[in-house]
């Protein structure tokens, strides 16, 4: 195991880099700000690589642990660590940050330093969420990460950003307060500990478990988002700049789902079993209902946002089947969704930068002018529709197969996404990309440049790699997922 505090580096390098970028000041120094941002993002990514390469796949517990006392009076610690469940998200987060910095390279021309700094700081904070093993530390990162995202939408967002921000705020505030109350309750119950790992062992009665579960559920469901608390997401995506959408879809949505695995399942196993029917039902509504809603969207970003909700339905469904296939499939789906939805939002951004419209009706025949782009967009559209050999397939395949054993009709409903997902993805692709050149905006399009090609190419490689050889992604999960499921199978009611 490494002697360097890798997790601290993964958190603080981007935050520090963000502060440095911020110090470059106004847009006179924009080229410098961009360069420093890229260096910071790459450096942050590089320190996360040893987490994966040095990861002990036989060990289901926490690795790369750092423990320092923070506020001794309340027994709050700076306690970091990753296991097979969280490690990949740290790497993914650092990877997506590079993509985001590159994605805004030419597009963002005002307040460049602030824009990049917001993303870097957010990246660090989100690494904090994925690595915190202390309840308060988690909460601080969890709440703090909202601020940069809020600013990104609020400052660089579209015309209707006030409503989007308002909605976003209302939803998350509600969840956060209940979450805080639940943390307090656990602190008292455990006799004064904020250690999440301690809480995993804490016996709790069924009634209390149910209340805590519901409090966590509301906090996490908003983030995932699960039906019916999802309506902030399409609005937030539509108003967010491309980079904001990428981070929102690729990383921010994973926080809620991660919360289920870190808090709900291990701390409240009995309530999880008790209420699994509810979660499965909500997940299936997300998959089917939202799939139909995505079909009729006229705005590309809304369409992909809704498809994100449907894909996240697979994640929550996989968790609450309590089988290795389900949980690992859900985790794979989370990572894959990071690549694919990030790429989809970037593709829409590429077109938006040129035409300044996200309406499907404003396009048609883009392939005639942007053949390279059309080919890559095809790949991601197919990945979004869950085509085998792309990453989008692996998670859905595992969850559906796991679901057959769980309950045939659950699998039936989940598998319907094979048709619905293909329908909304391909129908959008057909209307936007295929056909004759629809109007003079499309006529004037120029194909993707080297920077855009590089970004999409890297994401394409990631998507195909994970589709063709997912084993490196799943082998790190096995020990932790098995430990988790063993733990969840044991009742905490005494």
């Amino acid at each position: 195991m490494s002697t360097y505090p890798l997790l601290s580096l993964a958190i603080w390098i981007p935050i520090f880099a963000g502060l440095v970028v911020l110090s470059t000041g106004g847009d006179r120094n924009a080229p410098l700000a961009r360069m420093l941002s890229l260096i910071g993002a790459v450096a942050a990514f590089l320190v996360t690589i040893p987490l994966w390469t040095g990861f002990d796949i036989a060990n289901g517990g926490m690795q790369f642990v750092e423990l320092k006392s923070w506020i001794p009076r309340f027994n709050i610690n700076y306690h970091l660590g990753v296991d097979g469940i969280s490690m990949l998200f740290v790497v993914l987060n650092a990877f997506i940050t590079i993509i985001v910095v590159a994605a805004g390279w030419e597009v963002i021309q005002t307040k460049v330093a602030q824009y990049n700094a917001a993303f870097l700081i957010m990246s660090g904070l989100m690494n904090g969420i994925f690595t915190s093993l202390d309840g308060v530390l988690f909460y601080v990162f969890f709440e703090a990460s909202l601020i940069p995202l809020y600013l990104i939408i609020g400052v660089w967002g579209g015309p209707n950003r006030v409503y989007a921000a308002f909605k976003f705020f209302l939803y998350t505030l509600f969840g956060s307060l209940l979450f805080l109350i639940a943390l307090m309750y656990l602190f008292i119950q455990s006799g004064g500990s904020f250690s999440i790992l301690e809480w995993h062992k804490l016996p709790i009665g069924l009634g209390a478990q149910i209340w805590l579960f519901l409090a966590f559920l509301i906090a996490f469901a908003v983030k995932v988002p699960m039906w019916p608390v999802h309506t902030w997401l399409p609005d937030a995506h539509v108003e967010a700049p491309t980079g904001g959408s990428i981070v929102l879809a690729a990383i921010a949505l994973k926080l809620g789902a991660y919360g289920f695995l870190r808090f709900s399942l291990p701390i409240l196993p009995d309530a999880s079993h008790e209420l699994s029917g509810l979660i499965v039902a909500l997940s299936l509504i997300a998959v089917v209902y939202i799939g139909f809603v995505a079909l009729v969207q006229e705005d590309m970003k809304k369409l992909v946002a809704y498809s994100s909700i449907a894909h996240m339905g697979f994640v929550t469904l996989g968790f609450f089947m309590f089988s290795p296939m389900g949980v690992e499939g859900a985790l794979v789906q989370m990572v894959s969704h990071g690549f694919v939805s990030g790429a989809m939002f970037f593709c829409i951004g590429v077109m938006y930068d040129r035409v300044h419209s996200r309406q499907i009706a404003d396009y048609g025949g883009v392939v005639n002018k942007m053949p390279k782009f059309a080919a890559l967009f095809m790949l991601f559209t197919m990945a979004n529709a869950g085509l085998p050999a792309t990453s989008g397939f692996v998670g859905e395949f595992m969850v559906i197969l796991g679901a057959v054993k769980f309950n045939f009709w659950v699998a039936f409903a989940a598998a319907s996404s094979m048709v619905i997902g293909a329908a909304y993805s391909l129908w959008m692709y057909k209307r936007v990309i295929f056909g004759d050149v629809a109007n003079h905006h499309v006529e004037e399009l120029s194909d993707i440049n080297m920077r855009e090609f590089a970004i999409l190419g890297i994401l394409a490689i990631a998507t195909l790699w994970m589709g063709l050889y997912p084993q490196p992604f799943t082998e790190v999960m096995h020990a932790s997922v098995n430990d988790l499921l063993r733990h969840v199978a044991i009742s905490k009611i005494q």
Partner: protein
Amino acid sequence: MEMQKLYLLVPMAPLIGAMIAGLFCRIIPRWVAHTATIAGVAIAFIASVIIFKDVLAGNTYNGAVYTWLTSGDYRFEVGFLIDTLTTTMMLVVTFVSLMVHIYTIGYMQEDPGYNRFFSYISLFTFSMLMLVMSNNFMQLFFGWEAVGLVSYLLIGFWYTRPTAIFANMKAFLVNRVGDFGFILGIGLILAYTGSLDYATVFEKAPGLVDTTINLFAGREWATVSLMTATCICLFIGAMGKSAQVPLHVWLPDSMEGPTPISALIHAATMVTAGIFMVARMSPLFELSTTALSFIIVIGAITALFMGFLGIIQNDIKRVVAYSTLSQLGYMTVALGASAYSVAIFHLMTHAFFKALLFLGAGSVIIGMHHDQDIRNMGGLRKYMPITWITSLIGSLALIGTPFMSGFYSKDSIIEAVALSHIPGAGFAYFAVLAGVFVTAFYSFRMYFLVFHGEERFGKADDAHHHEHQGDHDDEETSHDHHHGLAPGQKPHETPWVVTLPLVLLAIPSVVIGFIAIGPMVFGDYFKGVIFIDHHAHPAMAHLSEHFHGAVAMGLHSLTTLPFILALSGVVLSWFFYMKRPDIPAAIQRRFSAIHALLENKYYFDRFNEVVFAGGARLLGKVLWRGGDVAIIDGLIVNGSAKVVGWIASVTRLFQTGYVYHYAFTMIIGLFVLMTLWINRA
């Protein structure tokens, strides 16, 4: 060379060709693209021949290449199963693919997407090979969807045509409906056998024959046999890919793609994947007579009713497309009758003669300058002799002329169905017999209209040849590829790259049935590969007793009903379309309701468009506007914001600004808290 490496070479060579032609399609010259891909496919073909000989010598193989994924106790691998069934498919796929690659040089020579096209067909060859060489369900599904993807890309190859981009989306979505069933079947297999590896599954399946699953907890009537449920789910996948009613609707529209891929993908190989899959899974399907009955009925409906549609088509490719649907129905019927080897045998002969017919049709289309309407042809035998003769051979093989390849396979199917006793076999027997007449009629209707009779081309009758079949064709008529012959212009024979594949495909179309029927259907060729429960499904065993060699079978058939039916079909089509063209016109007027039914393809498309496509859009709108926008956002989110505002306006009243109000409130609060604390202690 080590055999394992050779196995790997078979799919990899076309893949490398596809990557060269695809990734660099904008920078390499055309000759590099077609040389690279043809070399790749040729290597695959040669390697397949070597492997075939090796397998005949008794060297089968079943092993993994790499572990794709492990999860829990499950292990998913990418691997190869090499046996006689695999090598048969490998030979068919690589040979037809090679022919199509060569043919494409001629067919696509004027197309700007030349390199891209070669890349796609090589990619298809790779996908199809991965599908047939798989030793597990996961990889099968990979290949299954990958061929679907390439089919999607190729149907929409001319992506500016509205009809093409509609057809490719339709094809993909209809196939996805099949795959939806398929993945549930795979899920059932994994849930109950714990593996997706064929060998393990087949080993465990007999032990599960009495297992039942309950679809609705506690309801007696909802209990079904596991094997029946699994097999029907798997077969739904086959119905999508092999275009069985009601999931057949995509195949006629797939004719929007260039003709070479219609031959390769939508006739010879991809659409037979479902047939191959069921034959591969024979140890599972044999465990459920109910599933076999379902299969035989679906196959019979497809064989007969799709044949009827072939009669009224005027687009040369669509005639062949409906004929393909009908023949796929025949193969499915054979599967249902537990005559798996016969189904594979028909698959093989059909691959040759149907690829020949499609490529012949393509050659006619080139000769006619991309006019596809058979009403504008006639007398082409004078101008295109090689195309004429080869097409005649293909048509004769298709209708089951004794001693030709199609005869042996089709006659075996009819005999097997006659001997089958499972429910539905009676209907299927009627359907396949009637189908013989229908097949002969529409095949020779097309043959006569194209190659014989009056020369109807070059009449500058624009309005006429823009009148295409299908719902969506009328949206678009002005594409460069649809110009037809100018007045006075004559059709011409096509270059050698086009005619050579025709000749090379005509040879097996004639002889392969005669050569192969003995070992393949009645010999030990598929021993240990295809499993038949002879006790429950004795049709094949009885059929073998009647078989006394290929020559005797051919001679005997001259006195049997199928031959008479086929002959009368040919004669009647000659009489109707060569002698008395007024009769079919009169029939069409007399039975206009039936004609309308056929013209509208039994209204399947209309139904799907209104009920499924329209229904999904409507449901989406209702859920979005009603659920998300009105209820969740309008009522709850914005509503709670209003409530917060209201509460705030009420609580504002408490902020009076008087110190004694605040002090009083604090005292009460303190009092309440202390009371609670004391009571607790």
